[in-house]
């Protein structure tokens, strides 16, 4: 065990990196690789895997120093699924070889990741998934099935994949977790056009996709447990950063209100004030959660933040369309495009209104999240179920 790394040590190492690789004269990828190797990618990771074995809270010390020096970042929004979901799962369940192979190019952004979880027949009931992985005589896994709502699939080099390896077991127990090569000839990616007119997501068809057993994450049949880590990290990643006042969707509405007095009505004024207060309280709730994490007292509040933001985004953008009057009847562009990034606030009110409808569906519907809060936080009993002890193959579909 190396001596405990404190804030001063993180600062010293960051300055050393900046001295040996001046951002002004170092290529972006070279700088990021050097940063990873210096243990400043995820300071809480083990040494050699992008970290220093330091407390997670010290990451902000490195980040602040690097931002002040105008160092390039790894464009976290472009590789969000890799950073937020694949990396913690690989760190938690991967073999040493998998960790060494995948984490560095993932963090640096050389390899984009996507997530092959949801299926047309397995949304909220993800454990009912039907994509099959069958082991052939070589020991490789042959995967057939269909996945859906896959963002970045057309850009991704790798995917985290869950598939059914034993249909005779109850549904949660017959699943295994894999790393899937998106360049395999059996992988077909088709854009999935959505309510906004664009295709931010994809459908992914898997036909005879070959995955070596060395790309399995965790034991055979334990895929559901591994996936819990992935999904937990998906929700925890919200609330990580400090949001300024009026930082979310309320910002553009408040701006419009101030700049365009002719649009104001008594009704929209009351609704704006109510939503402004709720947005400010949601911001403070996120800030309190952040302070709890920094103080090493993580609370269950994170599971609630997504619920709050989903509802607020929908109500605020709905008000915004209405406030705009005649202009609210227009839409910027229905042409089908495949955006690399989703910018919730960068487009017009109509787009925000439509896109935010997904906020209460993606990453766990609000109804499922309410169940999670009720059962895991409040300790309320679960609804009686008839699907837990039945072999997957015998469930009604």
């Amino acid at each position: 065990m190396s001596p405990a790394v404190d804030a001063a040590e993180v600062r010293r190492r960051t300055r050393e990196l900046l001295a040996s690789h001046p951002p002004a004269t170092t290529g972006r990828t070279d700088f990021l690789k050097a940063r990873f190797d210096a243990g400043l990618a995820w300071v809480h990771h083990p040494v050699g895997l992008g970290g220093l074995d330091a407390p997670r809270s010290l990451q902000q010390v490195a980040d602040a120093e690097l931002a002040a020096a105008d160092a390039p970042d790894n464009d976290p929004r472009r590789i969000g699924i890799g950073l937020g979901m694949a990396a913690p799962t690989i760190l938690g369940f991967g073999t040493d070889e998998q960790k060494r192979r995948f984490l560095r190019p993932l963090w640096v952004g050389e390899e984009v990741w996507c997530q092959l979880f949801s299926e047309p027949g397995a949304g909220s009931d993800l454990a009912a998934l039907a994509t099959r992985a069958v082991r052939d005589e070589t020991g490789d896994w042959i995967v057939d099935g269909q996945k859906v709502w896959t963002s970045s699939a057309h850009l991704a080099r790798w995917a985290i994949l869950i598939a059914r390896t034993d249909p005779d077991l109850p549904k949660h127990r017959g699943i295994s977790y894999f790393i899937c090569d998106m360049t395999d000839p059996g992988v077909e990616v088709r854009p999935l056009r959505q309510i906004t007119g664009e295709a931010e997501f994809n459908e992914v068809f898997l036909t005879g996709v070959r995955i070596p057993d060395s790309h399995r994450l965790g034991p055979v049949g334990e895929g559901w447990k591994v996936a819990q880590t992935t999904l937990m990290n998906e929700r925890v990643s919200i609330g990580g950063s400090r949001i300024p006042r009026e930082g979310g969707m309320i910002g553009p509405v408040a701006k419009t209100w101030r700049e365009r007095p002719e649009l104001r009505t008594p009704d929209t004024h009351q609704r704006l004030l109510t939503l402004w207060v709720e947005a400010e309280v949601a911001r403070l709730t996120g800030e309190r959660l952040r302070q709890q994490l920094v103080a090493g007292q993580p609370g269950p509040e994170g599971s609630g933040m997504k619920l709050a933001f989903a509802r607020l985004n929908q109500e605020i953008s709905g008000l915004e369309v209405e406030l705009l009057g005649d202009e609210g009847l227009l839409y910027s562009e229905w042409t089908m495009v495949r955006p690399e990034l989703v910018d919730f606030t960068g487009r017009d009110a109509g787009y925000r209104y439509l896109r935010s409808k997904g906020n209460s569906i993606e990453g766990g519907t609000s109804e499922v999240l309410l169940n999670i809060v009720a059962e895991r936080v409040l300790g309320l009993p679960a609804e009686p179920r008839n699907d837990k002890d039945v072999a997957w193959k015998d469930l009604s579909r």
Partner: protein
Amino acid sequence: MTVPTPAATPDLLYSQDEEDLRLAVRALLADRAAAPTVIAATESDTPYDPRLWSSLAADIGAAGLLVPEKLGGQGASHREAAVVVEELGRSVAPAPYLTSSVVATETLLASAAVDGPAAALLGELASGARTAVLAVPFATPPAGAGPVLAALDGTVRGIADAAAADVLLVPTAEGLYAVETSGPGVAVESLVPLDLTRPLAAVTLTGATGTLLADADAGATAVRRGLLAGAGLLASEQLGIAEWCLTETVRHTRERHQFNRPVGSFQALKHRMAQLWLEVVSARAAARNAADALATGSPDAPLAVAVAQAYCSGVAVHAAEECVQLHGGIGMTWEHPAHLYLKRAKADSLAYGSAGSHRQAVAELAELPAP
């Protein structure tokens, strides 16, 4: 136009000292203000328990939290006082803490007389030996605090905790006065309040005399500051109410069986409780933010208080209403304490200004003007 930004990042957590204080207050209230005791007390002539008050005010030292040590107080801040208020909300114990130890105390501290006639009174309030209340209707918002009376003559209705108070702080057009309730020309008439745990009274002054604490302008400023502190810490009371309501509702619906299963297993009910949990979590952030802004004297305090009141009022009422509904018939009885919380929550939603009046304050402070 620029977007108003908070001056500094507020500390939204509870310190270890604050948690220790909470445990002491909670233990005292569990001992002296259990629900049957509070229900019985509300049916007596005076719901206040003098032994509870002396333990809270003097032994724990809660009455003097806002008062500097040189004036006989604890030299703590609104953050600690907010924790006391939160626990009092959780127990709905009748105690003139918010009215005397927060609003009257803050008004005195803000008055110019803090080095003169107010000093002795502050010491008495800090020790809990006496209590004082600000003689304005309980529903007065911080921004609407004009003098009610022209002089020490006339009637002010709806003053919270006046019947138990030794001193009235009376804002008049001539200035802010301290008037002894036992003095000549002072009549305190108890009213029948919606919330039996916080009695209201009408005070009639007929040629009463008092000590001038501040002239009209300085008095008005002091009263506004007192009411701002009251409104800000009331959010913590509302948080305490809401938390109790949620906790009890979860407890009840886990135990209560209908249709051969706990009623809390039905999604129709558990989703409502999960929603309340989210509101409670949010109310805590808003209430802590207001307490911290008051404690640090932040220029953001008026907005932080307005946001906390605009939000937490509705949360406490919602939690209490859900508590009654999800308790079914039991929630409608006099025996079960749910009604105490509903009445307190509803009365609190008017106290120191309704949510609507605080949203109007937000409109001004956040530069979102009316049409």
